[in-house]
């Protein structure tokens, strides 16, 4: 068939004895958005890495149109018209160069003249930026622009190659709604121009909006293809997990005594003041756009940056931590978002990662670490969270993303606290791991107050007793999670989107 842009047949790949792809057969037709769904560890990333020339396949073939395609390097894949936008934004850009050089990076790397004609480079860069509707001064250094704009720069750079196959790996995870809309408009335009698009995401809202077809992947093979309208979303999830996913039923317990009381708090200059009270045995989800102030709130409570005004008390005592150590001593724990940047110690095994904040508890005389005590606690937490691993001594990076995330959440559940804040605990994990983590958060919530920060309302609905909406660094709504009106929450979320600083806020320490 001539219209089938990309055909993959019998693709296999093993790392050592670990068979990651067990014969993938997949067609990605031109002019359609094919969404690829799969649990963490299903082999999606490996498939992408083979297509974009990072890894070679062990067996099987890929054809692009009628031409065999086996790129030996990312540059070769790019020349053949396969363009990839990676999940990790900083993988796709060079922070020390200006925007123009970033946009033209591939052409610069290709070779050509030794000396660069700056003016021509900038003119060409402006064209590329304009083509994706990116309005930006191209002479600015990339390090100085917001995360979301960097993402658009890397996408614009990808677009400048007139791609035949565009692969997007979780591209919206750091984008605000407005930016997501802009990206989706772009994807739809490219689709209409006849580009084949492979879109990888865990976000059902993205999938519903974009998908022409859904392909589910499980255990290194394709487990289902759904292309008949209307698309069978639950079927796709079932094919991805291998079993039904049950609906979460939140029963709201009676909240206990107030733990955290925030009064008249102003998070930053010019923001409206707000109050917030969190009770024992209560799980609050705080939702809002990227940059709505969720992370700023967490930062204030965890000693990473103070609020401008207002009173915060914890169990009736003033709470103004000077730093994370101070906050932890007061019983406020924060499981930060972006685990690879803010949480994972890549050189450590599971147990050493898990005990990091509370190593003192496992240390004897002369600060000697009692390995036995540490391993016992790790085993208990592995069992409680359902982490899939061989032993507590496994390197943390040998785990799939979902299991890494479970360890990072378990790190902060290993000791009792008064207030547990989890910033995007479901980031980059599949729906099964998300349900697992959510259930453990709820099950262990009885003797503390819990705040979960999540941009996705679906996630908030699964985990919370109460959903609080933030916008412009203030609280604009609070809803008991019972017969909830999602449309009303959405309205509050986007209450003033033109004021929300798009993605200006990176991680909590920024």
């Amino acid at each position, binding site marked *: 068939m001539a219209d089938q842009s990309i055909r993959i047949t019998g693709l296999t790949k093993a*790392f*050592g*004895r*670990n068979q990651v792809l067990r014969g993938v057969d997949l067609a990605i037709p031109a002019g359609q958005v094919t969404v690829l769904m799969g649990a963490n560890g299903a082999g999606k990333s490996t498939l992408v890495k083979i297509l974009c020339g990072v890894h070679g396949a062990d067996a099987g073939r890929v054809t692009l149109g009628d031409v065999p395609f086996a790129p030996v390097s990312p540059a070769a894949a790019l020349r053949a018209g396969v363009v990839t936008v990676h999940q990790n934004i900083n993988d796709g850009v060079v922070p020390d160069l200006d925007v123009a050089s970033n946009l033209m990076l591939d052409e610069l790397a290709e070779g050509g003249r030794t000396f660069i004609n700056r003016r021509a480079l900038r003119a060409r860069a402006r064209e590329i930026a304009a083509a994706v509707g990116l309005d930006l001064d191209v002479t600015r250094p990339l390090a100085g622009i917001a995360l979301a704009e960097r993402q658009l720069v890397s996408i614009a750079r990808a677009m400048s190659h007139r791609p035949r196959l565009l692969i997007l790996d979780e591209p919206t995870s750091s984008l605000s709604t407005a930016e997501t809309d802009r990206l989706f408009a772009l994807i739809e335009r490219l689709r209409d121009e006849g580009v084949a698009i492979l879109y990888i995401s865990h976000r059902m809202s993205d999938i519903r909006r974009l998908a022409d077809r859904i392909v589910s992947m499980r255990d290194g093979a394709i487990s289902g293809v759904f292309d008949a309208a209307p698309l069978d979303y639950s079927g796709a999830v079932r094919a991805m997990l291998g079993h039904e996913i049950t609906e979460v039923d939140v029963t709201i317990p009676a909240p206990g005594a107030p733990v955290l009381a925030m009064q008249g708090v102003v998070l930053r200059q010019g923001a409206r003041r707000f109050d917030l009270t969190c009770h024992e045995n209560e799980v609050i989800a705080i939702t809002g756009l990227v940059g709505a102030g969720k992370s700023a709130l967490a930062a204030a409570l965890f000693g990473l940056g103070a609020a401008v005004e207002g009173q915060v008390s914890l169990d009736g005592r003033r709470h103004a931590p000077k*730093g*994370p*150590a101070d*906050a*932890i001593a007061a019983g406020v724990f*924060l499981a*930060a978002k972006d685990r690879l*940047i*803010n*949480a*994972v*110690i*890549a*050189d*450590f095994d599971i147990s*050493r990662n898990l005990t*990091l*904040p509370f*190593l*003192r508890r496992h*240390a004897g005389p*002369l*600060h*000697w*670490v009692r390995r036995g005590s540490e391993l016992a606690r790790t085993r208990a937490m592995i069992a409680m969270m359902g982490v899939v691993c*061989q032993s507590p001594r*496994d390197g943390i990076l*040998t785990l799939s993303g979902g299991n890494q995330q479970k360890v990072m959440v378990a*790190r902060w559940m290993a000791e009792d606290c008064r207030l547990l804040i989890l910033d995007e605990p479901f980031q980059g994990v599949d729906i099964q791991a998300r349900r697992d983590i959510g259930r453990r958060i709820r099950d262990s919530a009885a003797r503390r107050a819990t705040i979960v920060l999540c941009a996705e309302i679906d996630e908030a609905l699964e985990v919370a007793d109460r959903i609080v909406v933030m916008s412009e660094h203030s609280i604009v709504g609070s809803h008991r999670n019972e017969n909830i009106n999602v449309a009303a929450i959405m309205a509050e979320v986007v209450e003033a989107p033109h004021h929300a600083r798009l993605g200006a806020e990176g*991680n*909590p*320490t920024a």
Partner: protein
Amino acid sequence: MTARRLSLVDLAIRYGFLLLMAGLIVYFSIVAPAFLSPQSAVFVFQSVAITGILALGVTATLVVGGFDLSIGAVATSALMLSAYVMVIWEMSAGVAVALCLLMGATVGLLNGILIVKLRVPDLLATLGMMFLLVGLQRIPTEGNSISTGMALPGGGAAQGTFSPAFLMLGRHRLDFFVENLVPLSVVFLLAIAVVVWLFLEFTRHGRLMYAIGSNAQAAGLAGVNVNRYKIVAYMISGTLASFGGILLAARLGRGDVASGNNLLLDSVAAALIGYAVLGASKPNAFGTAVGAVFVGILLQGLTMLNAPYYTQDFVKGAVLVVALVFTFALSGRNGRGRV
């Protein structure tokens, strides 16, 4: 990845360097039978005692993801300072040792503050400190070496002497099966190596330092005082370097401005070779000690084979490159992205 049985490559990564060392020992003892004598073994240790101690200090800074280029200059500054204190100020050995250690710790503190508080990149801060110290140590004597009887700038001659107690640090030998066998400096090396190893591998502080080296941001969010640990690492490095300088002064018996040229490169080489020992792929005290001894064995063997002195640096460089290949290429890791 999760394979339980070790493949050939894994074995090569893990034991390759120790095998290479065993092979060298066997080879040298066949071609030069005197190589296997206790005296020869002691000589190997003695030749690496000072660089080994400095290398253990650098290891502490490598663990927190830093680097200390000032160790060689700290050691020679301690050499000059101890000579100055005893020969010109005519003070006791105890004062000399105390002032040198204090100087080393202070330099480490300054390095740490430059890096942590003033945000100067570690290589540049410690490089600057190195130049500063190399110059500073020559100012009081107007560039001359210090020895008893030297003419003082203000007229007269220096009357002080290196006290016997001080010289003992570098020259005394303990009986160990054979009389007068083991120099005190070797005992210091072994003791310091064991202490640093225990500290880094088994204590809470060592663990947190490794966490900082792997992901400082994550360690900070786990409540670790990242800045304080970094400063402490540079202070450990400075203090150990000044102790190395004291041993050098005690061995030489004079404040020689020309000695200690190779200290920095030799100790950095030992610490980096340490990455390859037992496939650690990270800075570690055991590996550093083995790395120092490895270089010592190689040089002692070559000397006994009558290899010319000027080939030594070439051989050391070659060993370092091979060790780095073991660490980074064979183990397929990207390393720590720096050093």
